[in-house]
């Protein structure tokens, strides 16, 4: 007959087994799950018209994107009345047909004063962590736009303390602006202010997105969207011989990109060996690049790598427009820098002490140059160039 001890042991053992089995079987009954909570990653009041896979840009908290702000900005962008002498609009230097550049070596302001720099294409600027060619402190469009509007050296729009109220009155006198300003800034009793003008211009500029090139269609599965030459060019672009992808990478073809999913913002600047005046590594006066801001000798000649989207429309190239064509650009990089044999800027950029380590020479044939250019041309987004949504509203019937 079983003893009390063995009975207790069996009972305890049975309870343990039942408990254990219950635990395991219960665990097996649940289904695995993974929840992804992106917070406000996809929250926006604006129709960005972005294809799948392109993350949303960052919207500043004090100037969230709205259609009303975008449309007001579009009107202001193309309006020459937003200048001291009524001759200069943003679109004077940023023309839609040229992917919002002007086709000049360097831009010219309202009074005829030349800018030291080539106009940057306003393509996907919403994704730029820094604005202009070489200023790491200009991180918002709302900051950068103040420069062309109010700059005195060089004069661009030429808005000064003497004419600022007069300019605002021009806008108030334009019947089309009253409803636009009211819609963009509801609740403001007098919305026609420079703060709101800058915000609206920033909204319009921020909304200039371009992701519908032939390359994009190829990336989304249309194998016929790229020519064979462009496909060969793509392979060369991403290959270890040319290594273009090191600085022109990602969905915006630049290593200087930020979006809502970015955690650590990187703001790289590069010296590509364009100048090496007197062998000192120097760049021409008033065009020292990042050095102008930081004062660090090693920052001499460093500039931001711009997007290559629509690059075929934005000649001439480089920060000072000193390289005329895409063929010249490729020959410049294949040489590992530029040799200037005479003149005030003489020097061998290939030997610049401040040149980026990524800029090394490579061999490339004429046929391969043509292939790479075919690929770069495939980055042209015709819908961006012709989109009526971005066009000059003053030349079309409202």
């Amino acid at each position, binding site marked *: 007959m079983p003893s009390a001890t063995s009975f207790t042991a069996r009972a305890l053992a049975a309870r*343990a087994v039942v408990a254990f089995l219950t*635990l395991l079987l219960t665990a097996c009954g649940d289904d*695995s799950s993974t929840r992804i909570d992106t*917070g406000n990653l996809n929250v926006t009041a604006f129709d960005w018209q972005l294809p799948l896979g392109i993350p949303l840009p960052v919207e500043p908290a004090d100037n969230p994107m709205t259609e009303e702000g975008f449309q007001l900005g579009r009107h202001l962008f193309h309006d020459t009345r937003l200048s001291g002498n009524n001759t200069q609009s943003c679109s004077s230097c940023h023309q839609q047909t040229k992917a919002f550049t002007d086709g000049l070596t360097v831009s010219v302001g309202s009074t005829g004063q030349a800018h030291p720099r080539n106009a940057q294409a306003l393509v996907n600027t919403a994704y730029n962590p820094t604005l202009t060619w070489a200023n790491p402190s200009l991180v918002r469009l709302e900051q950068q736009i103040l420069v062309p509007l109010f700059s005195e050296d060089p004069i661009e729009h030429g808005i000064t303390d003497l004419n600022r109220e007069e300019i605002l009155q021009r806008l108030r006198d334009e019947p089309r602006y009253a409803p636009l300003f009211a819609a963009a800034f509801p609740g403001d009793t007098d919305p026609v202010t420079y703060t709101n003008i800058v915000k609206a211009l920033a909204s319009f500029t921020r909304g200039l997105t371009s992701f519908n090139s032939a390359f994009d269609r190829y990336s989304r599965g249309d194998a016929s969207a790229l020519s064979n030459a462009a496909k060969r060019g793509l392979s060369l672009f991403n290959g270890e011989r040319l290594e273009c992808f090191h600085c022109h990478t990602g969905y915006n073809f630049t290593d200087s990109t930020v979006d809502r999913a970015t955690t650590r913002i990187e703001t790289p600047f590069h010296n590509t060996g364009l100048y090496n005046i007197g062998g000192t590594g120097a760049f021409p006066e008033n065009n020292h690049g990042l050095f102008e801001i930081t004062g660090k000798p090693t920052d001499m000649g460093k500039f931001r790598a711009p997007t290559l989207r629509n690059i075929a429309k934005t000649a001439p190239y480089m920060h000072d427009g000193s390289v005329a064509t895409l063929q010249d650009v490729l020959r410049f990089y294949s040489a590992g820098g530029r040799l200037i044999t005479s003149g005030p800027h003489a020097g061998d950029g290939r030997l610049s002490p401040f040149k980026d380590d990524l800029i090394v020479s490579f061999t490339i044939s004429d046929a391969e140059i043509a292939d790479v250019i075919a690929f770069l041309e495939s980055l042209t987004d015709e819908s961006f160039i012709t989109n009526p949504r971005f066009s000059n509203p003053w030349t079309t019937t409202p």
Partner: protein
Amino acid sequence: MTARLPFLILLALPACVFAHSADDNGNGTQVDVALSASWRSDSAVPANTLWQIPGVLTGGHALPVDKGLSLDEASLTLSHQRPDGIYGLLKAETHGSEDSLSLEHAYLGFQPRDGVATWLRLEAGRMNGEFSPANREHASTRLFSETPLVMDAFLGRHFVDDGLRLVARLPGQLSLGVESWRGRAFPATSGQGSTDVFARWHFATESWQLEAGAFGMKSEAEKRIDERYSAGHSHGGTTLTGPDVNFIGETLLYGVSGRLTWWMADEARLSLQGEWLQQEPDGTVQNSSVTRQAFFTATQTGGYLQLEGRWKQHELGLRHESVVVDNQLTGSGAAVLAQDIPHLVNNGFNPERLTLAYAYAFRPGVKARLEWVRDESSATSQDRVAVGLVWRETLWQSGD
């Protein structure tokens, strides 16, 4: 799940260790050898494929089994026990898909033979964690050649680290222990460390034996990567690289274990053994350039239950294993990281495995093993057969 844990701990109280330690040798020096080799009809994953348990940040040494003949485990152990209670153990071992022999264990221990502290045991050095019975088993000591899935998922196959262990044997066959580790072992990282506490209880009658245990562990990790594939591990002849992701944060791990054995006769026994673990990672996952990151929290549970019977030289066993995950990725980078780490996103799939094993000890210390495995631990279900040999022997033993 967490609410059930205290209740179940009350039912399944701590028990004693299953596996071998130098303490078992008695005085003197001993050299032991163990070897397990298996031929398998298929690999766990196709060649040139990463093995990722869906929903889990797998790592450590959790490599998949290969098709064909492979060495599950080979080890050589040197142990020495002194009359004053000091003992030491050195163990060189290789296992699985690893290509090199490593010093797996190298530790000193002390358990007083007389005096007031005979109930205390202190060990320090490189050793495996005593908190989990499965962690102390190897292909040569258990009926099944493959490590339990939950051990691969939560502990990177096995937990071996440099550390310190203090065990107190209390009245009533209850043992309590605490271990502190340097952090070489997954899920921790070097310099961050792990700490665990465990309890075991052992109860036996003439024909019944119950061993139960429970533990809790906390590990810290700093930029923990999947080391299985980050150093160019060659699996199938091609260097594989894991996803660009690392984990920063802490991991809490709890477990309960139990083994009930019924000695039906002198040479016949039946045992039911199992272990259930719950892992709670809480931290950040990010890419190496830290341009994308998201908060990662999860409650992941897993376990195994195996029924074994032994009669004379014959052993037969059936083991069922499963893992269930409940993960959450939070933050603006969550969606992008989910694309970069697709195996971390698991909705509706519970990795499971069922193994039927038979072993025949045709010589003392040598047995042949035959297994059938239904492997549903990844999206592709697979059946494979394994035939293996196991050899365990004391090569040399001396006494003082």
